[in-house]
């Protein structure tokens, strides 16, 4: 909510007291987009498209600007196919169990997002299994164990320092044996410029495929909503290592605007599926593009 009001407040200020869209209005709009971490490239693209419209329509009033902006940004956001959304925490049809591998740089909120997903899938009547394949970070296993206790969901784990790929393997084998509906695998945070750590991720993925060739059915890249332009590099390198299929943007309960969503969707065509808005189990929202964009521009 805060995110949206903040953004809209800026847009409103950008056009306050103006009746037509002129250079000033566009400059202010540029500032608003850039300050939301949309990034120069995507901002310029949006502004240029609006400039074209202004030139074509000769007289464009600022009331119309909102509508056009909304359309421009919505056009940039990727729509995953209807089957692959998690509306009401339904799972995609055609396979069972559904395996989600969760990846991302350090501290973005992977483990917490898994806890929230476990909570929500359980509420929706799905049987969930967690895999603690972050065997590296201090007390990462304990952290996920607490989430497993909180949500009443079983967990496959080993001691810190063991091989993450074999934990992932064990988890999927166990999930199949238990007939779980959804398997959520946590991985250690890793910076995308560290080749050996990215290789480890590819290996985890391959090992999972030994059990279920089509898995993981979702590779979820978690991005911190307060991250700036580096999120684009993260999307690029994690995609190269694991073919990321979905994004979750966390910490949007803060003042950061998460404009990164727009830039990444535009440049990498990866759909956003969830947003994190707090630290509690229920603080996860299924991403709804229309609502998100509407939220940006509605008072």
């Amino acid at each position, binding site marked *: 909510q*805060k995110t949206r009001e903040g953004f809209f407040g800026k847009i409103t200020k950008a056009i306050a007291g103006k009746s037509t869209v002129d250079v000033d209005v566009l400059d202010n709009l540029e*500032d608003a987009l*850039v*300050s*939301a*971490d949309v*990034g*120069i490239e995507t901002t310029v693209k949006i502004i240029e498209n609006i400039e074209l419209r202004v030139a074509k329509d000769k007289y464009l009033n600022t009331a119309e600007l909102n509508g056009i902006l909304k359309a421009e940004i919505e056009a940039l956001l990727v729509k995953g196919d209807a089957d692959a959304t998690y509306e009401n925490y339904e799972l995609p049809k055609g396979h069972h169990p559904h395996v989600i591998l969760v990846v991302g*740089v*350090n*501290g*973005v*909120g992977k483990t917490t997002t898994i*806890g929230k997903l476990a909570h929500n899938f359980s509420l929706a009547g799905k049987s969930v299994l967690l895999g603690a394949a972050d065997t*590296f*970070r*201090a*007390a*990462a296993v*304990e*952290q996920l*164990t*607490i*989430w497993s206790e*909180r949500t009443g969901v079983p967990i496959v784990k080993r001691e*810190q320092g063991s091989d993450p790929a074999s934990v992932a393997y064990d988890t999927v084998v166990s999930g199949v044996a238990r007939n779980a509906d959804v398997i959520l695998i946590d991985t250690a945070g890793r*910076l*995308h*410029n*560290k080749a050996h750590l990215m290789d480890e991720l590819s290996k985890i993925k391959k090992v999972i495929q030994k059990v279920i060739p089509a898995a993981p059915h979702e590779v979820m890249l978690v991005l*911190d909503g*307060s*991250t*700036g*332009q*580096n*999120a684009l*590099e993260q999307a690029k390198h994690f995609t190269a290592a694991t073919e990321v299929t979905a994004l979750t943007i966390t*910490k949007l*309960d*803060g*003042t*950061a*605007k998460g404009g*990164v969503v727009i830039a990444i969707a535009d440049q990498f065509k990866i759909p956003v599926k969830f947003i994190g808005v707090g*630290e509690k189990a229920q603080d996860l929202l299924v991403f709804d593009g229309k609502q998100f964009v509407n939220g940006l521009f509605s008072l």
Partner: protein
Amino acid sequence: MFNSLSEKLESAFKNIKGEGRISELNIANTVKDIRRALVDADVNYKIAKEFTDKVKETALGSKVLLSVNPGQQMVKIVQDELTALMGGTESEFNVTGNPAIILIAGLQGSGKTTFSGKLANYLKTKKGKSPLLVAADIYRPAAIDQLEVLGGQIGVDVYSERENKDAVSIAQNAIKEARSKNKNVIIIDTAGRLAVDEVMMTEVANVKAAVNPHEILFVVDSMTGQDAVNTAAAFNERLDFSGVVLTKLDGDTRGGAALSIKYTVNKPIKFMSSGEKMDTLDVFYPERMAQRILGMGDIVSLVEKA
């Protein structure tokens, strides 16, 4: 982006060779390119504007030196301004109290707990101190365990009270513990919190008021975007922190947030954290950071080419 910045700078300055002074006309585009590069490096857009305006002012009317080409000269102006901004006041780190009390604060996941471990390790191995780590994060699942694992790795004791849900009294009790165990530095790790979370900001302000720290360090993820200014200003308003710690510099972020924060709160950046291991801590080098933000690798090669 940075390749194109150096290319742009290069071509921009080709035209002013042989002119006596740098003029408004011949740097207008250059200034815009530098500004955009800064914003791409996550420098706050308003600050990028002010900074490039200042660069422009300095550059305007400067005599084009004969010994170097105008490209080199412009690079030097930018570099000097940025380094001056990043450095400024000499930063001391105050561990003279007995015990010296250090409070660690910041957003969720920024690297506070990891840094607390690294700082304890640094003070123990490099400064001959006898530190005590204090687990005052009563919220995050397994936060105490995490600090205990790190303490174990570096051979530093961790003070915790698993049943106590009051960060203030944990911090106060830790001081008594330090006195009785002859520890001369205590490092208080706190929970991550958002600047807009009134209850949590009050909690950390209360910890500060109760223990009166010698140092309060604000820990920031170097990948932070435009919001860094808001967060830093809000934490500074509540805590009046004494220094900043930049984390995750082992990544490939340009780290423009560092410039934004320095510019906004004018507090020294005291440490750079660049890894998950306990020995990956360094004191802050302004030149290095200035070069990183500007993508100096390219600019240096530009100068070499010139």
